[in-house]
Structures are given as C-alpha cells and as structure tokens.
C-alpha cells in the first residue's frame, strides 16, 4: 500500500476488465455461495472504478 501512488493506464484497463468479467459471471451464475461472492466482488470493483472516475 502506497498513499502516493496512482493507477497506471495498464492497471486501469485491467481493473475495468476484471469488473466486466465479474459482472458477466454474476449475470450467469446461480450457485448461491458463488453468486453472492461474485456480486460482492463486482460491487467492490464498481466502487473502485467510480473512485477513479472511470465509470
């Protein structure tokens, strides 16, 4: 953790891809344990995406 760091362009791209992948999985998956975990993870990443002004 480094409070002086900023996200690189490559990291931005990967963050968006991860978010998109999780959202797709959440749309398809029906296993309660997995669906819940994936939805929460997608929500966390969405907030990170918004926090970087990428939404």
């Amino acid at each position: 953790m480094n409070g002086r760091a900023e996200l690189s362009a490559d990291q931005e791209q990967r963050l968006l891809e991860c978010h998109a992948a999780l959202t797709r999985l959440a749309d398809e998956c029906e296993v309660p344990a997995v669906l819940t975990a994936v939805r929460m993870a997608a929500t966390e990443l969405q907030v990170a995406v918004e926090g970087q002004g990428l939404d």
Partner: protein
Amino acid sequence: MASFERVRPDELEYWNRRAETMPRQDLAEWQWRKLRRALERARKQSKFWSERLPDDIRSLDDYVARVPLLRKSEIIAAEQEAPPYGTLPSVDPSLGIRYHQTSGTSGDLPVRTFDTPHDWVWGVDVWCTVLYGMGVRPQHKGLVAFGYGLFIGFWGMHYGLERMGCTVVPAGGLDSRTRVKLLVDHQIEVLGCTPSYAMRLLETAKEMGVDLAVDGNVQIIMAGGEPRPESTTRAISEGFGARVFNAAGTTEFGTVSMFECPSLHGGCHIIETAIIEEVLHPDTLRPVDYGEEGIRVTTGLGREGIQLFRHWTDDLVVKRPWHECGCGRTWDWYDGGILGRRDDMRKIRGVSVTPVMIEDVLRGFDEVGEYQTVLRTVRGLDTIVLRIEPKADGGLDLAALGERVSTAVKREIGIRPDVEYAEPGTLPRFEVKAARFHDERSG
C-alpha cells in the same frame, strides 16, 4: 479559526490520490458528470424525485437555479406517504442490506434510510478516505465507542477500519470502565467517539487511576458527530496524548462528508468527489462568499437507493478555498467544521447563543465535571441557568466557583447566567449529539 501546517510534498499520502488531488476544473466536470447521472436515475426511478426534478437540467448552475431546496420536513412527509421510505427510493427497498434512522429529536419523526450493497461499499470507502487521511494504517488497532444501534453514527468507521485491514474492537454496549481497560490492554492506536464521550472516558480513566496519555497508546482520535469548541479538542488531545480529528456526516447523505486533514487544524475538507456543498445565506437563500457564515446545502453523488438533491442541513458553516490548506487536496474546507445548528441557536435578550459557546467557556473550569444549560423565564426575563456538577474533589467553595463561572460567561457571551449546583454524577451524559439547551421558557 484553523491554523496550518505545511506538509512536505514527498510526505503527502492519500487513500485515492486521483480523486483527492485532481485540478479544480476536472473536479467540476467530475461533479457534473456524476450529478447528471444521479439526476437521470432519480427522475426515472423515484416517484418523489420525478415530480420534483426538471428533466432538462443543463449544467451545475442550472441545477442550483432550478431545483428546489429539500427540507427535512419534506423528507419525513414523503416517507410518511407509505412508511418506512414512502416515495423517495430510487431502487426497490428489498435490495437494501442495512437500515438506519435519525434519532427523531425535538418531537420530529425520524428520517429513515437504507443502503444497497453498492451504497454501503461506497460509504465505507468514503470513510477509508477520511481514516487514511488522518494517518490510520492497516497495522493499527481501532476501538469504536458508540451504541451500534439504529443511528448510523460510527458504523461506517467500524467498517472502514475493517476494510482497510485494521483490527477493530467493537465496543458497543460496554460501560466506560470496560472501554478504558480495552484501550490500555490492547494498546489501541485509533479511537472513534464523540467529543463529549472522549471527555467522559478521560473522566472515567481518572477515577480508575489510569492516565491514558501514559498508560494508553491512542494516537488518532476520530471525534465527530457534534460541534465542539477548541478548548474541548485541546483537553481531549492532552488527556490522551493523541491528535484529535474532526469529521461529520448525516444519515440522509449516508456517510461522512467532511474531515480534518493533518495539516488543517480546526477545519474540515469537503469530500467533493462524493458531495456537492453549497453555502447559502439563511434568510436570502443566496450563496455566500468564501469566509462568510451560511447554511450548508448538500447534494449526494454516490448513493443509488435514497438520493439527495439540495438538502437544507441547517448546519452553520464558513467555507474556505482549498489552496489555503497545504495537504495537496484540492477540496475546499469548512473553517471549524460544522459550527452549530441553526435550530440550536437561541436568542437570549437579543444575543444569539449556541450550546458550543457555553461549552467553550465551561471547559475552561477544571472544577466543573458536567453541566446543563437551561433557558428559563425568570421574572419575565429570558435567563440562562447553568446547572453545574462540581468534580467530586471536596472542599470546593461553590459560591466562589459559581461567581467565577458567571463572570466568565458574561465576559465571553455578554449575558450573566444564574448558577445552580447538582450532585456529582446526577446530570445526564451524552454518548451521541452534543448536549442541547434545555428550554423551559414559557411561550
């Protein structure tokens, strides 16, 4: 008034550097982008907002000019249409994962809110911005001393500490002695509570023979939730040997919205990526300039479930420009944080008096433990009656103490109060919300 400390550029650290240091022009564009999306959502999905928001708002200025102010009574009325949330929500409330409500003081019904998973993660992330900015780091241990009930209070701090990787001690439902013991036994570095409760902990520690500045390890105190005078901040800081930070939020907004950074003594940055804050003259409702007192009006940019547009908070504030703080954040700030609530202000014989003004004088008297401010009509005149609880040291000359208190209040505020005495330990203690005036006046 705030004072400043310049921080060396290589020491500046942020939870989210991009959001906290973006140029003002970019920030204005960011706010407008978020606001436009929030307006769209509200118009489409909330009955209350669809009837209230124009559909063709073109800019931030246009928004401010055309969207009416939202009063607390309107929120309550909208919720009453179909309790608990009425016509307000922009999503199906069954998607909520948390419920909170205000305390419903002064005879009002409470304001009720819920958070979706997104709202809660967002709100906790905002808390992380605040905590990280105050110097909290993952290796720290935190203790949150509040009631963990319906009131949102420090819930977000608890989850923020947890999210960041700190070890959190949830000290709800414990008495003050147990909390003091936890602080010492675990050598807790971070404490969250109201300023009045921090004073209470110091008092309890003293009774236990514990000197928290020596025996404890608290370094950062997040003392929010109520306006406080500088003298109280100083007393807490000295008692714990810790830096005391201010912050504030509302149930309506859903999380914390302003905080004191390490280089800003006595001020609070507005978290401008999460909220738009206007400051308006209480009577003309026109914006006031930097440096002038007014009422803060807030627009939330993050919550999706219960949205907030131009909410009249009734909080008195004085805004200052961002560049006057040396921390590198490009967020404007409020000098002294929230100075008081307009509805807590009372006119006594032509003088405007707030609870914080009284507290500022009383905290200067070590012999005074607790006190209560009563407004009473005495022989047809509005009178301030201070009910004072002397500390149980014995041998105090009460009459002399009363005279000194009375003279000090007259000197600082301009009104000479009557002084009464209460037995030690009999006056009410407050865990949340500053003690307000106890108004016994007729009419």
